[in-house]
C-alpha cells in the first residue's frame, strides 16, 4: 500500500500522477474464505478491515451485488452524533464517535471527520423536557451534550431563526460539540483500501442468491451469481436488503424498508457552521466542504424498495428548512435522491449472532447508520471473530423482540435517529 501524505502527493505529481496504484484490487471470488461479509458499504468493509486488523482473520471476502459504497453509505447526509438516551445506545454510538476521532490516521485516508457540532432544536415544552432528559443522561454516561438557550443556539448557528412569533419558535437546543459530519464515500474507500492491504478480497457485482446450510443447520457458504463460496462465517450487513438475505437462511426478520430522501443545494460560500436538526419542524441541514447545503428529513410513509421518493416529501422538507433558516429561501435545490432504510420495531439496530450458527447480522440502522459506521464495523468484526457479541452490542440482539427488552430511542424521545 502506497502511504498517502503530502510528500507522496508531491512525489507523484512529478510523474503526472501515473505512479499511483489501485486503492484496492477488484477481486474475483476464491472457492472459500474464513469469513464472508455480505454488503460492501462502510459497515461491511469496516468489519472486514477490523477482522483483519484486530483479529488476524485476513482470509475474508466482502461481496456486494453492486459497487462498494453504492448503497446507503453513499446516499446519506453524513451526520455523526452519539447523544442517545439509553445506556445501550449511548455506549454503542459513542464507541463509534471515539473511533471516528482518529479514523483518518488509522486508515491513512482522510475521511474528513469534522466536529462541527450537532444542534438539536427544541420547539415546545415537550421537546425541552425530552432534551433535558437526554442531556442529564448523557452527562452521567460521559457523553458530551449541553443545553443552549435560543440566543446561544443562534450565536452558535447564525442563520437560525429564533423569532418568538414563529409557528414553532425555538425554545432552546441541545448541542453535542463532538458531533459533526464526515465524507461518506471516503469512509467506504478508506476501509476498502485498508482491508485490501491486509489481504481482504473485495468482490463487487456479485449478488448473493442463497445461503447454504449444512445438516447441522450451520452455514456452509453463500451461493452467488459468480458461483458458490464456502465459508463457516457469514456477516450480513446489507441495510435495506438484509431481511431478503436473512430469508435465504430461513430467518424472518422484524424489518421494514422505507425510502428515505435527501437533497443538496447548489454550492455557496460557507455560512452554515454546524449540523442542525429539528424533529418538531422535521428537517436537518449542514453545509458540505464543497459549499452545498445537505438536507434531509423523515422517510416516505410507505414501505418500498424504490430508491426514489415523492415530490411532496421534498416540498415539506424544504418548507421546514425555510421555516428554521429563512435566509435560504432563495437558494436552489441541485439534486434530490433516495435510499432504502431498514427499520426495526424499536428503531435500534440488530447487531450480533442469529439463530443460525455461523450467521451474523448487522442491520436495522434505519435512518441513522452512517454515524455508527466504525463502531458497528468494529463490533461486527468482534462478534464474528469471537462467535459472541461484544458487551456493547450484546443488548442489540434479535432476541429482544421476543423478550421485550427493547431499546426504543424514538419512543423515549420522539427524536428522529
Amino acid at each position, binding site marked *: 500500500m502506497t502511504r*498517502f*501524505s503530502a510528500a507522496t502527493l508531491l512525489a507523484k*505529481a512529478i510523474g*503526472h*500522477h*501515473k505512479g*499511483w*496504484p489501485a*486503492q484496492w*484490487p477488484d477481486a474475483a471470488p476464491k472457492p472459500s474464505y474464513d469469513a464472508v461479509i455480505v454488503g460492501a458499504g462502510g459497515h461491511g468493509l469496516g468489519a472486514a478491515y477490523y477482522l483483519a486488523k484486530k483479529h488476524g482473520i485476513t482470509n475474508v471476502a466482502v461481496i456486494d451485488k453492486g*459497487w462498494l*459504497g453504492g448503497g446507503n453509505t453513499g446516499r446519506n447526509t453524513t451526520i455523526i452524533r452519539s447523544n442517545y438516551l439509553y*445506556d445501550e445506545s449511548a455506549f454503542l454510538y459513542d464507541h463509534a464517535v471515539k473511533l471516528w476521532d*482518529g479514523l*483518518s*490516521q488509522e486508515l491513512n485516508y*482522510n475521511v*474528513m471527520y*469534522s466536529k462541527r457540532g450537532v444542534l438539536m432544536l427544541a420547539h415546545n415544552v415537550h421537546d425541552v*423536557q425530552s*432534551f*433535558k432528559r*437526554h442531556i*442529564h*443522561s448523557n452527562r*452521567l*454516561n460521559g457523553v458530551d451534550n449541553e443545553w443552549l438557550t435560543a440566543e446561544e443556539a443562534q450565536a452558535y448557528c447564525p442563520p437560525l431563526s429564533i423569532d418568538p412569533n414563529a*409557528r*414553532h419558535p425555538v425554545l432552546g437546543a441541545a448541542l453535542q460539540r463532538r458531533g459533526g459530519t464526515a465524507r461518506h*464515500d*471516503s469512509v467506504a474507500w478508506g476501509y476498502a483500501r485498508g482491508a485490501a492491504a491486509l489481504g481482504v478480497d473485495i468482490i*463487487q457485482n456479485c449478488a448473493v442468491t442463497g445461503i447454504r446450510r449444512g445438516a447441522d443447520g450451520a452455514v456452509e457458504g453463500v451461493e452467488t451469481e459468480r458461483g458458490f463460496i464456502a465459508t463457516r462465517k457469514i456477516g450480513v450487513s446489507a441495510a435495506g436488503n438484509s431481511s431478503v438475505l436473512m430469508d435465504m437462511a430461513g430467518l424472518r426478520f422484524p424489518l421494514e424498508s422505507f425510502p428515505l430522501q435527501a437533497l443538496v443545494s447548489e*454550492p*455557496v*460560500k*460557507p*455560512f452554515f457552521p454546524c449540523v442542525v436538526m429539528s424533529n418538531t419542524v422535521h428537517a436537518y441541514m449542514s453545509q458540505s*466542504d*464543497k459549499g452545498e447545503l445537505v438536507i434531509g428529513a423523515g422517510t416516505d410513509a410507505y414501505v418500498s424498495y424504490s430508491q426514489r421518493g*415523492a*415530490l411532496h416529501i421534498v*416540498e*415539506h422538507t*424544504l*418548507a421546514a428548512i*425555510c*421555516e428554521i433558516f429563512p*435566509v435560504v*429561501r*432563495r*437558494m*436552489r*435545490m*441541485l*439534486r*434530490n435522491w433516495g435510499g432504502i432504510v431498514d427499520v426495526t420495531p*424499536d428503531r435500534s439496530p440488530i447487531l450480533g449472532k442469529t439463530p443460525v450458527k455461523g450467521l451474523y447480522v448487522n442491520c436495522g440502522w434505519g435512518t441513522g447508520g452512517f454515524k455508527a459506521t466504525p463502531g458497528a464495523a468494529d463490533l461486527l468484526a468482534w462478534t464474528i471473530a469471537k462467535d459472541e457479541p461484544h458487551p456493547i452490542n450484546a443488548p442489540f440482539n434479535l432476541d429482544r423482540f421476543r*423478550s421485550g427488552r*427493547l431499546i*426504543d430511542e424514538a419512543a423515549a424521545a420522539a427524536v428522529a435517529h
Partner: protein
Amino acid sequence: MSAFRLPGRGRIDVARPVAFRFDGKAMTGAAGDTLASALLANGVHLVGRSFKYHRPRGLLGAGVEEPNALMGVDRGPGRHTANVRATTIELHDDLTVETQNRWPSLGFDLGAATNLLSPLFPAGFYNKTFMWPRSAWETLYEPAIRRMAGLGKAPHAIDPDRYTARHDFVDLLIVGAGRAGIEAALAASASGERVMLIDEQPELGGKLLANPARWDWLAGALTRLDDAGVVCLSRTTAIGLYHDGFVGAVERLTDHLPPATATGPRERLHRIRAARIVLATGAIERPLVFADNDRPGVMLASAARTYLHRYGVAVGKRVALMVTHDSGYQVAFDLAEAGIGIAAIVDSRPDLDPSLKARASDLGLELIPHAVVIGTHGAKAVTGITLAPLGSRQVRKIACDALLMAGGWTPTVHLWSHGKGKLGWDEALGAFVPEGEMDRVTCTGACAGAIDPGHGVHAEALWSPRDPASFKAFVDLQNDVTARDIRLAVREGFRSIEHIKRYTTNGMATDQGKTSNLNGLQVAAGALGNTAPQVGLTTFRPPYTPTTFGALAGSAKDALFQPTRKTVIDSWAHAQGAVFENVAQWRRARYFPRASEDMDAAVARECRAVRTGVGMFDASTLGKIEVVGPDAAEFLNRMYTNPWKALAPGRCRYGLLLGEDGFIRDDGVAARLADDRFHVTTTTGGAARVLGMMEDYLQTEWPDLDVWLTSTTEQYAVIALQGPRARDVIAPHVEGVDLSPEALPHMAYAEGRICGVPMRLFRVSFTGELGFEVNVPAGHGLAVWEALWAEGQRHGITAYGTETMHVLRAEKGYIIVGQDSDGTLTPDDAGIGWAVGKKKLDFVGRRSLARPDMLLPDRKQLVGLLTDDPHYVLEEGAQIVDVPNAPVPVPMIGHVTSSYHSPTLGRSIALAVVAGGRARIGETLFVPMADKTHRVTVSEPLFYDREGARLDG
C-alpha cells in the same frame, strides 16, 4: 451597435435598448437578449472563473447546459440569487449581475494561484493529505478548503418574494416545445383532450428559434395550438418525473421583469398529473476533450448558431471549428453567410461528405480533414489554436478569436430516467437513448434519439501527440475535472462510473453533467478498456435544473407553515391575557396571569381555586372519536385493554390503548351513549394517530366488524368545570339532566341541554375534584363558556390553563401519556394495571405483555418523589441514581417525568419512573445535577386525597 451585433438578424429588438450592469460596469443590450448574448454583443468573453483552479472561462453554450457563466443576480435586498447561468437570464432594465468565485476581480483573480499548483490537486487529493497533525484538519485545512470552495455568495437576508403552487390535471402533458413537442401537441390538439405543452425557455420553439427558415411554420403552429386551447407554458421547467404520471414543474413568473415592475409571486410550482406524457426534451451538443479546451471563446457550435440567428450576435470575427460530426458544418456555413470569417474547419475524420466539402469550397472555407486541435492559445480569450494531423507531430498554428466544437449530440433523457426508464446505447449517436416502454410515458424527437447521426465519430478525447497526462483537457468545466483526473481514478481502482464520478466530481457541478457525463464516460471506458455501454451511466436525479427552495416550500411559511389549531374559546382566553403554549398543532392557554403575576404565582392561584372553589378549563382540544355500529363494543374491546361489553349506556370508562409492543400509546375516557355508540376521547396530540390506528385495524385486521369511525374533535367544544362548586355553576343552565350525585355519579354520562343548546355531559375529573366536562356543538362553545363564566362569578370561578391542569393531576398521580409514559411503559409499569381486563381473551398488545422482559421486577415503575428540600423543584428529565457520586458512566435507575411546586401541599412533588420503584417506596435516592446532588424519598405516586373522596362530591 457593437462590432459583434449583426444588423437585421435575430429575434431581438435593437430598437429597444436595455441597460444593465455587469460587475459594476454599465452596458447596453437589446430587448430579447439573454445576458449571455448581450455580453457577447459587448465583446465580453471572460464571464467566470472555474471552481477549483479559478481558470478564466467564457460561454460554452447558449442554454441550461452552460457550466461556466454563473452569475450572482441582485434584484434588491434579500433578492440575491447565486449561480444563475447567464444563458438563462433574460435581459431587462436595471439587471444587475456580478461574477462569482474570484477575488479581487474577474480579470485579476488571486485564486488562480491554485492553477499553478494544480499538479498537487488531482482528483481525490484531499483523501491523501491534510491528515497531519490530526488537529489541523478542523483548525486549518478544512476552513481553508471551505473558503476556497463554494461558488456564489452565501445568503444573508430573507427573500421577500412569494411563491405559489397549483395542481394541473391533463390528458396529455408534453415536455419541450421544440419541433417534436409542437408536432405532438398539434397531433393531439384536435382530439378534444386537455393538452399541456411546457418549455423552459421564454419562447416556445426550442432549436427552431435558431433556424430562421422555420420561423413562419413555428408562428403558424403556435397560433393553431392557441386556437385549439392547448395550454402552453413558457419559462416552465419540468424538474422531475415521479410515480404514476406525476411531473413537477416550476414556472418563473417575474425574474424576466425589471425589479420595479415585478409584482405577484416569483415562481409557481405546477404539480401535474397526466394520463399520458410525451417527452420532447431534445438533445444537447457535446463538447470535445483536448488540451486547454476551456479557454474563453471555445464554445459549442450549436451555441454559436443560436447566438447568430436568435440573438444576432457574432461569437467572433475569425472563427475556427473543431468537428467530429457533420452538424458543425451547417454552423460554419451559416456564420460564413453572415459575413463572419471562418479561420478553418478542422475535422478529425479522414473521409468527408462530398456535398459538405463542395459547399465549404463554394464558400471559400478552409477544410482540414483528418486533423485535430491539440491546444489553444491566449490568456483570457482564445487567440489561436494549434492543430496536428492525426498521428503526426507536424503541428500548425491558426489565429482565431473563437473555436467552435461539434462533438455530436446527447439526447436529454433526464426525465425518462427519473421514471426508471431503461436506456440503450446507440452506437451511431455515441449516446444513450430511451429503450423499452414506460407506463404513460413516451419520448419523441431528439430526446428519443431521432437525430441525424451525420456520420459522427465519438472518441473519448481527441488524439494528441503529447503525453495525455501532461496537459489539462477538461471534461467537466465547472468542477475542473480533466481527462487525466478520470484516468487517474481508473488507475487507482475506481472502476464503476459512480465511483469515478464521486472520486473526480465529474458531473456533480450545478449543470449536473449535461455536457460532461457522456465525455466522462467515454474517457473512463477508454481507460478501463471497456465500451461505453459496458461502463454505463450514472443515475439522473431530479431536478433537471436547480430549483428554488421557495418554489418548493410555496406558501407553507410563517403562520401557514402549519395551521395553528385554535379552539372556539381561544379568542376569549386571548382577551383575558392568557399565555399560550403549543401542544401538537394546537395553541392552548397555559395560564392566565393577573397583573404582574409570573407563571408560578398564577398557577398557584389557579390551583387553589380548583381545590377550594371552582375552576374552568377549555378541554376542547381533546381528541374525540365517535365509534358507531353493531360491533362498536366488540371493536373497542379489541382495541383497548379494558372490558367494554358490559359497560352500560350512560356510563364512562377510562380507556387505555397499547401498541402491539404492549406499551402505552394513548388514553382517554369513553362514554357509552347507546348500545351501538361510543364517544371516545384521546389525548390532544394523539387524536389523529389513534384514529389512524383504529382505521388500520378495522380495515386490515377486522374487516368483518360492522363499525364506523368519525373524528368529532372539532365538532364539540369541551368546557371542564372542576372543583367543589362545579355543580353550582352549571346547575342553573342545565335542562333535562338530574345532576345529583345519585343520578349522575362520578364516571356517569348524560345528554340534555345547557344554555338551551344540546349537551353531552361527562361527570369526569382530571383534577381529583368534583368535575363535569360539558360538550356542546362547537358553534355554541363560546356562548356557553361565557354564560358559565358569568354564572361562576358568584362562586369565585377561575379560569385555568394547561399548567395548572398538569399540577392538579400530578397531585393525584394521573399520568399524561407522552410525558410520564414514553412508549416504553406497560400498564403495570405506570401503575394502572387495573385498567387491563384480566379476563379478556385478546386486545392490541396483549401478547406482548406476556413477554419475559415485561414481567421482570426491575422494570421502571411510576412512583412519586419528595425532595429533602421541600422548596426545590426537580428538573423534569433529571436522572435518578441509588448510589451518589458514582464514577462515570453512572448507573441510572430512572428519571423525573413530572415535577412541580404543589400549592395544595405547600411543597414540591414529582412523578418519576424508577427501576423496581414500587418496592423502593420509602427509600432515599439521589438526583445528581451538574452542580449538586439532591436527596429524594420515593413515595406512592399520589399526593392528595388518597381515598378519592373529593371525586364523589
